[in-house]
């Protein structure tokens, strides 16, 4: 990790879980894979629960249901880009809806 905490600004945004079934394995996987591409430290908060957004395991433990409002917090060298990219993933519902609608019993 190359960022220096003292010099980095923290970027925050409130994001909403649109996924019909909440933050289950697929959105968690897509989110972690996307977050890992950035050097910044990326945290996601669900109330008191905090997750490292680069870890599927951490994200699953948020147990964020549909409609949950989460706090996305990014700091590091590519923080603005990371924030925009990840917030857009939430906005687009991770592109999951389209896939799920073609597999009615196959879920998430």
């Amino acid at each position, binding site marked *: 990790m190359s960022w220096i905490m003292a010099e980095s600004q923290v970027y925050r945004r409130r994001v909403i879980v649109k996924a019909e079934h909440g933050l289950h394995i697929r959105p968690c*996987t897509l989110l972690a894979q996307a977050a890992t591409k950035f050097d910044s430290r990326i945290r996601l908060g669900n109330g008191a629960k905090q997750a490292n957004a680069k870890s599927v395991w951490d994200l*699953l433990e*948020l*147990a964020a249901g549909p409609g949950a409002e989460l706090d996305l917090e990014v700091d590091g060298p590519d923080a603005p880009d990371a924030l925009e990219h990840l917030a857009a993933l939430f906005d687009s519902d991770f592109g999951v809806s389209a896939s799920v609608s073609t*597999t009615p*019993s196959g*879920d998430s």
Partner: protein
Amino acid sequence: MKLCEFVAAEAVIPDLQADSKEAAIRAMVASLAKAGCITPQDEEGIVSAILKREELGSTGIGNGVAVPHTKHPSVEKLIATVALSRHGVDFASLDGEPVYILFLLVSPPSRPGDHLRALESISRHLRNQSFCKFLRQSTTAAAVMELLKEADNNELP
């Protein structure tokens, strides 16, 4: 949610012989059917739905663990089984490693919250290295269930 609330003891496979993702899923669903958790008529439909879900992206989430799952209207409550593979199964996992511990979940479409809570519980316990180590050392279904109970009661180191 406690693991023992949704893992069917009679369907646990302590020594899974399957050497492919599909064979592993088939064996686990068959075990649920044999244990009476699902009807034999629904077996193929559930296998197909789980395989279809895997096509969207592997549920092998790393650390030798996979959580294949589907929603299916034939179940009234969330049910699951556990399988342990000695040699590992290629699951196209996120970290590219074989999986040794599999939790297979079938949940009713009407209860998405239960599915999330079960995932949270599985994830939380499987991060515990002691739990994973003891689980992989278990050789009987009874030992697996005993361990799940200990995990539920936070009795593990």
